[in-house]
């Protein structure tokens, strides 16, 4: 008997070992979620930005404690999370209940019926206060009259400049600059300090890199990617003018190595005092004003430069979408409303400081004295930039689909990246703007065919 018992023990251990290995394998295979989360937990797939990581840390203690709903997070870098959400949602696999999507995905995800509409929840949940969400964000997350996602934070774009350098050189930044004024200022600020360039603009290929700021310039100079009837306009005089302006400006007074500089490189240049101005995301201000930043307090913020439109800042938001196939949409709403709610902002403000609050989505945040004190330098300009952004009508002519710094169609991730590669080569001086746009027009023509 003892012999037999021992054998059984070994077998049981071996079985447990195998089961553990299988579990591990399932986890490693990238299936994520379900293997560990158990049947009752909510599975959330989100991007690995600092604000999300903070949310992850606060969830167990503050959300699960209160509601009894366990949350299992899968956290991935931006490109991977987009890919994974697209795959899971497009197959309606239901592995993830909630995913971080943006105003780019909402229109076509909604059209394909991959998202759970949230308007009923938002109406019933008065504590959530849907009307407090900034209107452009609310609109950009609404498709065909129904609300499909709730923002976690929002951003627009604006112009950042070195107040001290401008003062020393006797330059004045107009409160609402035009691109021509910015180009003139860039020329004069160029070389203001040893190794300092006039302006930093993205030149790195990618639909989320070079294309974002460039498209806002195209919009305000009267251009568009497509007409209302899906005629590509990349070789139109306005698109050419804007692209030539952008490429010339960055080649003459922009950062060195511009064709390889994106958001991160420009942020670095600005922090290191290598550039006098920077036109980019409002989210950049948080890093420039962070404790320990060498340029903290030296930066001035003005709205995105314009030419023919009233404003030209872009609009972007990381937002929570609930998958249509999810069987836990009630619990999912509880999580979404908590993460996007006022209480959560207050919780972050109290636990780690108001400058860290996932902002840019609620009007009440900008009325909050504690937030105003921490983010005073850029809070107003950010709020104004977001409120003025109009994804449905960002330029001088009607558009086929909403979007300011992108065209809201699934093909744009590829089209934008390939066009960006052409324009980046123009930024590097390897081909003319005309040639880059002629090639791009052909690429756009292929995409447009599917929609006409």
């Amino acid at each position, binding site marked *: 008997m003892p012999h037999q018992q021992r054998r059984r023990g070994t077998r049981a251990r071996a079985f447990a070992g195998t089961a553990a290995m299988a579990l591990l394998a399932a986890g490693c295979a990238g299936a994520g979620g379900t293997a560990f989360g158990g049947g009752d937990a909510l599975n959330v797939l989100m991007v690995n930005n600092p604000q999300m990581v903070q949310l992850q840390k606060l969830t167990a203690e503050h959300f699960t404690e209160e509601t009894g709903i366990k949350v299992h997070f899968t956290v991935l870098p931006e490109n991977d999370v987009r890919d994974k959400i*697209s795959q899971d949602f497009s197959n309606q696999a239901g592995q993830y209940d909630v995913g971080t999507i943006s105003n780019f995905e909402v229109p076509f995800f909604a059209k394909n019926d991959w998202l759970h509409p949230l308007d009923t929840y938002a109406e019933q949940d008065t504590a959530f206060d849907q009307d407090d969400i900034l209107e452009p964000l609310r609109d950009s997350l609404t498709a065909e009259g129904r609300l499909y996602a709730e923002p976690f934070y929002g951003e627009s774009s604006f112009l950042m400049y070195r107040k001290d350098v401008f003062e020393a050189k006797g330059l004045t930044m107009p409160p609402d600059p035009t691109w021509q004024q910015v180009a003139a200022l860039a020329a004069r600020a160029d070389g203001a300090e040893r190794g300092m360039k006039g302006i930093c603009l993205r030149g790195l290929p990618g639909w989320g890199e070079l294309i974002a700021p460039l498209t806002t310039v195209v919009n305000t100079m009267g251009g568009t990617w497509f007409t209302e009837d899906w005629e590509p306009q990349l070789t139109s005089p306005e698109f050419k003018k804007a692209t030539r302006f952008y490429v010339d400006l960055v080649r003459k007074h922009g*950062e*060195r*190595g511009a064709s390889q500089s994106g958001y991160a490189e420009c942020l670095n240049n600005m922090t290191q005092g290598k550039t006098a101005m920077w036109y980019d995301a409002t989210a950049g201000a948080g890093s420039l004003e962070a404790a320990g930043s060498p340029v903290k307090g030296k930066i001035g913020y003005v709205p995105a430069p314009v030419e023919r439109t009233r404003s030209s800042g872009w609009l972007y938001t990381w937002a929570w979408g609930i998958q249509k196939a999810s069987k836990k949409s009630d619990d999912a709403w509880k999580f979404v409303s908590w993460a996007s709610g006022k209480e959560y902002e207050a919780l972050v403000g109290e636990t780690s400081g108001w400058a860290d609050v996932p902002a840019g989505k609620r009007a009440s945040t900008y009325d909050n004295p504690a937030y105003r004190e921490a983010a005073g330098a850029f809070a107003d300009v950010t709020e104004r930039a977001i409120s003025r952004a109009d994804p449905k009508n960002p330029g001088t002519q009607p558009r086929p689909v909403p979007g300011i710094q992108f065209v809201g169609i699934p093909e744009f*991730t590829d089209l934008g990246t390939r066009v960006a590669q052409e324009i980046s080569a123009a930024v590097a001086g390897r081909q003319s703007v005309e040639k880059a746009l002629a090639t791009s027009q052909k690429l756009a023509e292929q995409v447009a065919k599917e929609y006409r």
Partner: protein
Amino acid sequence: MTTAVGTTPQSPPRPPAPARPKRSGTRAWVTRAPLLPALVFLIVVTQLPFVATLVISLFDWNSLSPDERAFSGLDNYAYVFTDTALRDSVLNTVLLTASVVIATVVVGLALALLLDRTFFGRGMVRTLLITPFLIVPVSAALLWKHALYNPEYGLLNGALSGIGELFGDTDPAQPDWIADMPLLAVVAALVWQWTPFMMLILLAGLQSRPAEVVEAARLDGASAWQTFRYLTLPHLRRYLELGVLLGAVYIVQNFDAVFTITAGGLGTANLPYTIYQTFYQAHEYGLASAAGVVVVIGTIIIATFALRTVSSLFSEEATRA
């Protein structure tokens, strides 16, 4: 792979294979049976996905338009062969692979010859020379992009201005390396990373060279060049073949350097990068699969030809010698 290589000229003729005793069928199966699971596993993990890829490549399938999935025959293949971006990326892949392999073999051989001699601190030098190969590819690419090529704070331009200052030049040339020579920038980073690999293989070859033969050549009055040309090089043949083959197989697949250093811009996109873009960004499953199939077929053809050329080249050498 080794079957195509042929036999070395120096090897003595093989003794005739011993006649195998005839085994009964069952006996043979008893020996084979334990291997069957491995065979099945191999088929499941390598061949089934390839068959799936073949099938998918016949569909017009964009995961973001699920309702429009349809059988499209060979349309994807037609697109692969007519699309200029894809054709350019094929050309880039060939250029990139050939130049990196040739450069690494030449530099690796030179380093291996130097390391084959005994000198003080050889172990340390060898370790230092191997280091680039041990670095994670993506960090190596990042290192080149930022620490070396960056025109603002990169080491290359820093060195240029340092040298300029020495000679009283206050405004020395500060080239934008990646923008001025994108493909060369990628090649340089890859050569740096892959040279140790070639060096190691060739060094192993050199150290397996019988010392007495070299000694005999020296006594017969062969010059250093003659020894290298007629003894060392033929001896290294298999090692060179191995290095070229493995190097080519790995470098054809290179993704990290292109992705990190130029993000596929400035005309440097190679096939793996283009397929990645088609699959992950455009979500064109059918098209990406077709491109993948073309790559596999292309690689097989090129590898076969390359191997034949190399081995016939050396057998000619052998007959002449």
